[in-house]
């Protein structure tokens, strides 16, 4: 057995005339959490779908858990759990029935499935909802059930497409905590997200992509240090051009995005001194994050 769970080599996907994934390569090691980070339409879901054999690439080579995909995708899928971007729970059924029905798609017997359901319900913190209809669950509960459902076959590898999009902070933290417990149990995770915070908290390594192309890859902190490596002051209010002239000398770099001016500086006190008189401005000083990396590399913010 190799130590690589997923490998994509020069994978390209074209819809009509649009190349949505462009000669993309990456490798996910067993036991790590690998993130695909990018704005809407960057190609994250397309890559996730290609990795499970849901859609064939136009060029390139995909290997997942040792099996060539899509040709032998079924073989690989026996040990994969997938949470697609959009909930597709079976509305006709209760929480328990959803798990039961899904287990059968992995050729599990009713007895085998019933043996694992209690631990899955506990994992998803849905014990009290076991016999509730899926339609009545909150967004966070549905997402946790999706996660529990993806674990029914005790997969080695999880492919999670935006597991927390649309959830409130509390629900999101609960999912993050659950994902960390899966990593602690040795599972491999491929995660797509457009939340910087999610990527920073969970991913061992990640790839930032834009319009189907990889624009950076590495450890979250490594990327931040390498690309930014200093403090950030966000400045709101005032004329960006005028402000730029004012603080130019004490900043390494200045970016303007929308109404906000991002000032990257190793001497943030000096910037503050420069702007002391300007009571009309709102200043926020913070450590750099992946958002800044994206802004640096693309010249725009990832938030849509």
């Amino acid at each position, binding site marked *: 057995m190799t130590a690589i769970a997923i490998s994509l080599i020069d994978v390209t996907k074209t819809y009509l005339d649009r190349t949505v994934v462009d000669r993309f390569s990456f490798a996910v090691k067993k036991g790590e959490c690998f993130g695909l980070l990018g704005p809407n339409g960057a190609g994250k879901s397309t890559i996730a779908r290609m990795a499970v054999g849901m859609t*064939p690439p136009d060029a390139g080579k995909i290997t997942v858990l040792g099996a060539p995909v899509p040709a032998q995708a079924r073989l690989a*899928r026996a040990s994969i759990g997938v949470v697609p971007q959009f909930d597709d729970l079976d509305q006709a059924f209760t929480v328990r029935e959803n798990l039961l029905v899904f287990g059968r798609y992995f*050729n599990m017997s009713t007895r085998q499935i019933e043996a694992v359901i209690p631990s899955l319900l506990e994992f998803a913190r849905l014990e009290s909802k076991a016999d509730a209809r899926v339609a009545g669950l909150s967004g966070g509960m549905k997402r946790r059930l999706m996660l529990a459902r993806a674990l029914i076959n005790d997969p080695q590898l999880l492919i999670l497409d935006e597991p927390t999009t649309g959830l409130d902070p509390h629900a999101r933290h609960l999912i993050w905590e659950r994902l960390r417990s899966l990593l602690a149990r040795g599972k491999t995770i491929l995660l797509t997200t457009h939340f910087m915070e999610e990527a920073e908290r969970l991913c061992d390594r990640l790839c930032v992509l834009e319009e189907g192309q990889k624009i950076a890859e590495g450890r979250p902190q490594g990327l931040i240090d390498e690309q930014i490596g200093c403090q950030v002051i966000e400045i709101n209010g005032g004329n960006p051009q005028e402000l730029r002239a004012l603080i130019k000398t004490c900043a390494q770099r200045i970016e303007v995005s929308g109404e906000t001016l991002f000032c990257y500086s190793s001497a943030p006190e000096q910037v503050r001194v420069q702007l002391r008189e300007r009571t009309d401005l709102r200043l926020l000083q913070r450590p750099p994050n992946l958002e800044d990396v994206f802004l640096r590399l693309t010249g725009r913010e990832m938030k849509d």
Partner: protein
Amino acid sequence: MWENYAAVLPANGWNWIAVWRRNYLAWKKAALVSILGNLADPMIYLFGLGTGLGFMVGRVEGMSYIAFLATGMVAASAMTASTFEIIYAAFARMRDQRSWEAILYTKMTLGDIVLGEVVWAATKALLAGTAIAVVAAILGYAVWSSILHIVPVIALTGIAFASLAMVVAALAPSYDYFIFYQTLILTPMLFLSGAVYPVTQLPGNVQQMATFLPLAHSIDLIRPAMFGRPAADVIFHLGILFIFGVLPFFVSTALLRRRLMS
């Protein structure tokens, strides 16, 4: 290309059962309503047309008109039950509810799903068709022992129409398109296949068309059996129904692969 198509064909001979069982579990919850709904419609036709028209028509092929119509209704209700299951219920699971996508992330292939849905639709056809045959037998319009012989024919009829409907569902952008299939294909087929009157009433060249209609072959097998007469060309009729079950199955799987997995 060919390799990718092979990868979506049924993986083995039993995977489809998981899909069938999912539908069975959902159906069981509302079985009573569903059975009544499925039966009421053909029964109303049978007694409405059978008794009303029966007075005017008199005897047909040596049987009372209502007995004649009952044999046609067995096949026709199998056709409708199985078609509707695919174009409404299975289509909703495929498109609106994205259930198929969820299943595709498991050990199931697209072919397993299509097969499971087709066999499920045929199961509903079997229920609907057999129920009418039983009612006909109770009322003395059919020979009891014939039911054993027609059960496999009803099932095969269900498979054939489910497969055909699956092609339609694979191509239809929305529910609106199913109305064309119903009014332009299924309803004419009902009349051209001799479900409500003998095809001998029709002009010769129109009669010839019946050779290409699966429903006609189904009726050619069911009608003599229910009348307690020997059926002619059994293998030929079964063969045609079989082809209608198998070919559209592979075509629909290819079309659905393009639709869902491109």
